[in-house]
């Protein structure tokens, strides 16, 4: 086997090669972004798994739930969960719209998703006070889980608001060719949904 030099390129070939390089790099950036967000989601969900394990182990504490107190009612959180699911559905529709270049529909769906997400957040904030500190260890665990999730929800909701502001200020900014910010926010909002569903079951439906 031998190793030789390549032939020198003409100016035309160089331009064509540069164009191909730019295309390749743009495609690679998008591929990297998607994989990066996926790994982040798989990684960070482990914090929520850790808190579920905390919940499980603390249930063995003699002071988990003191006599005279009961676990919080699931009605309001169920409403909040429905709102969150609706928000995620709406965000998904918005993403599909922007991918199809339907900018007006995207914006309207995105606004709906953001408002529904905000409503979920406000309801869940009220849940922080669903149990008094005297109820036992359950209160600490409950508040940590709700608070931790709320912190993530508000961070991603902030991203949704930013996307909305951008889209309102520059209607053509997000389109079929440029929508990674929208897609990333939707993926992270799904993360908020999955984390919440896990917590919702553990906190309200497992006695």
């Amino acid at each position, binding site marked *: 086997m031998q*190793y*030789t030099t390549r032939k020198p390129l003409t100016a035309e070939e160089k331009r064509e090669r540069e164009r191909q390089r730019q295309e390749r790099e743009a495609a690679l950036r998008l591929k990297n972004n998607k994989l990066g967000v996926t790994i982040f989601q798989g990684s960070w969900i482990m914090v929520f798994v850790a808190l579920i394990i905390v919940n499980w182990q*603390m249930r063995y504490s003699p002071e988990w739930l003191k006599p005279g107190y009961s676990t919080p009612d699931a009605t309001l959180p169920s409403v909040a969960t429905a709102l969150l699911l609706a928000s995620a559905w709406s965000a998904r529709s918005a993403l599909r719209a922007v991918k199809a270049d339907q900018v007006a529909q995207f914006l309207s769906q995105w606004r709906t998703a953001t408002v529904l997400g905000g409503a979920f957040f406000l309801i869940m904030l009220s849940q922080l006070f669903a149990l008094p500190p005297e109820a036992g260890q359950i209160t600490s665990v409950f508040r940590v889980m709700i608070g931790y999730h709320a912190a993530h929800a508000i961070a991603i909701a902030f991203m949704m608001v930013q996307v909305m502001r951008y889209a309102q200020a520059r209607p053509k900014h997000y389109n079929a060719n440029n929508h990674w910010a929208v897609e990333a926010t939707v993926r992270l909002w799904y993360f908020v949904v999955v984390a919440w569903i896990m917590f919702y079951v553990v906190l309200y439906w497992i006695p």
Partner: protein
Amino acid sequence: MATISVPLEQLQPKVKRPGLGQYLRWSVDHKIIGVQYAVTALIFFLIGGALALGIRWELFTPDLDFMADGTAYNSLFSIHGTVMIFLWIIPMFGAFGNYLIPLQLGAKDMAFPWLNALAFWLIPPAGIFLLGGYLVGQTEAGWTSYPPLSTLFSGDGQTMWAMSIHLLGISSILGAINFIVTILNMRPEGMSLWQMPLFCWALLATSFIVVMATPFLAGALTLLLLDRVGGTAFFDANRGGDVLLWQNIFWFYSHPAVYIMVLPGMGVVSEILSVHSRKPVFGYRMIALSSMAIALVGFMVWAHHMFTSLQPELRIPFMITTMIIAVPTGIKIFSWIGTIWGGKIRFTSAMLFALGFLSMFVIGGISGVMLAAVPFNYQVHDTYFVVSHFHFVLFGGSVFSIYAAIYHWFPKVSGRMLDERLGRLHFALTYIGFFFTFFPMHWVGMLGMPRRVAVYAPEFQSWNIVIGIASFVLGFSTLILLYNMAWSWSKGRVAGANPWRALTLEWATTSPPPAWNFDEDPVPFEDPYGYGTEAAQAYLDAIDRAFGLPDAASDALPRTGSTPLSPAPAAGD
């Protein structure tokens, strides 16, 4: 006909090294970030090492005489352990990962350069928090920070400790995401996963552990901080909390963290043993897969750290899983021995440290299997036997491999060779100093000397004097390395592009590489360890002619007759 993407008859111009200022500010160049990681880690290594010598100075006598009180001693070993793990070994492998992975993959940079810089710049404030906590005082709970020591019996320093580790955890996760994406998405054409350098495989396995395990630590630290400053009682048994909760979550991260600290070292050793014995890696796929196996099984062994506090019915299962993890480790050892067997071994400093790793890590591995046996573990729990074991793994394993990596890749980073005579002296003193520091700890441990206590029974003093003297030899040996690096950075012999005649892609560019790494997409050789073939010889000669040869008088591997820009020599390297 394969091509190499440089004009062969024209020597590529030398690249100027970045100036000092570039290393002191925000940069998204993976090579600058790699050096930033390395220098930061080395500074913390010196701090951690000085603290270690403080520990040994105190233990020269059985009484408490050097330290003001037990609290000062507690802080000393707590900060020593934390600095060495979180601010030396883990970031130092981050340094090699950052510098080498894009080069080994023929890429221009990491997948997320900005995130890469952010991951590094979280480390200095974390270090300041940690050392600030030491100055504030009462960081007394050891690097494991078991409650109630870390909640009820520690001061504000412990709070700063937890904040520091939180930052370092985030840094690790960001770095690991970057490594995984870079390795999976940015390999060049012609490099499948099975043609990837073994260092990349090791970093891939390590990164999977980081992204899956570190969030657990984040969860545990959040609870610890809430207990300390938020009035909760997750770990306060008097108020219905559970101290074992911390131990379970902490070790679910921290046992895999042992592999975070060792797997990259194994990758380093796989590279060096093959290059410096001029032989293909024996059992490439088994080494690669055993890294992944270690990463997987590493998640199933955490409770062996808790044998004395664990439910009895869980002890045997965790004993078995712990012993099972010796299997993939043994496969690696076997493969490494197979690699050097019959090879043309060159006892360079890098090779000496790699062989040192092999011998010391095996001792650490064997004592690990001993500790996996529940009855024996009961006998030596919290004694110096355990201290000896983990130092054989983390110093004999991780630090020896870091030293080997420094000697191997310093020429690529700096363009100059490290001095081999100083390197051999460094190796001799490190090997002897290390062995006599930590091997006698097996005996004093089995005789019952407890760890983390400044005052001990007088019958242990003679061994502690031996250990203390050896530890100062070990400390001195580090200064030789630092002197060698400082001297060689400006005055070392010119390394050329590929002083070791290695086939992986980081050597197929100038030393140091240009900011963009490669002028064109490089063409990887078909087998990264396929030494001894005519094709390999031709590939290596092409690199020599395109990117420059080392000084004739340097300690690089001989060229078997090739001269700068001369026609390709005959095969038979």
